[in-house]
C-alpha cells in the first residue's frame, strides 16, 4: 500500500487530504504514483509548481517508491 497525502491547493484540487493506493508490481517512482492519483481523483495535477516528498523528505519525481512508503504532493511552501 502507498500512503499518499495532499496539502494546500493540491489537497483542495484532489478533494481529499489522503489516499491509499495499492502497491503496483515492479519498480516505480513518485511520477507513477502521481499518475495513479490523477486516475483515482479524475483530475489533472501536473503543474510546474507541483512538489513531492517521500517519507517526509523533499524528493525529485524520479525518486523510487516502495511498499508502505508515504508520498505527498503539494505546492511550493510559503511558511516563515
Amino acid at each position: 500500500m502507498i500512503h499518499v497525502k495532499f496539502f494546500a491547493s493540491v489537497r483542495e484540487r484532489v478533494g481529499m487530504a489522503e489516499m491509499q493506493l495499492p502497491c503496483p508490481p515492479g519498480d516505480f517512482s513518485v511520477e507513477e504514483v502521481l499518475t495513479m492519483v490523477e486516475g483515482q481523483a479524475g483530475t489533472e495535477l501536473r503543474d510546474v509548481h507541483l512538489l513531492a516528498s517521500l517519507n517526509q523528505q523533499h524528493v525529485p519525481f524520479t525518486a523510487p517508491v516502495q511498499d508502505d512508503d508515504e508520498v505527498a504532493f503539494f505546492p511550493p511552501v510559503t511558511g516563515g
Partner: protein
Amino acid sequence: MIVKVQEEDFDVSAECAGMTESKGAGALVTFIGTVRDYSDASDILSLDIEHYPGMTEKELERVSREAAQQYDILDSLIIHRYGVLQPEDKIVLVAVWSRHRATAFDACRFLIDVLKSSAPFWKKEITPQGSRWVTDCPGCRAGSREGHSHAPHAAPHLLHSR
C-alpha cells in the same frame, strides 16, 4: 537546538531564557515574522496556516543541523505556528546564539531563508474578497496556470541529497 511547531502563541523572552546552551553566548539574534494586515491586493482579515505534521518538524531540525554545521553557533531555537492567525500575531521565531554577532546574524538569516523555501507550511489569506493561497509567483497570483514559466518541479535546493 530546539524546534517547536505549535498552534498557540509564545513569549519570546520566556522561550529564549530557557535555552541552557546559550549561557555566556555574547550575541543573540532573533527574527520574528508577524502577520501583516495587508498584501498585494487587499486587506488581510486573517491568515490560515496549513502544515504537514511530522515532515515540518523533520525539515526544521534538518535546517537547524545544517546551520550548526555551517556556522560557529552555540544554540538555535525555531518556533513556527500553524492554524488561524490574526494581523500582528507572531508566525515564526528564529533565534541564534553565538560568541560573535556576525555569526549570529548570518546563521539566523540562513535559517529563516532556508526555512521559507523548504519547511512544509502553506499560508492562505482570508480577505474581504475571499480567501486565496499565498504564492511568491506573480503569474500564479494572477491566477494563470498557463502563460508563465517556472523552474522544473522539485527545485534542486530542496532535495535532501544536498
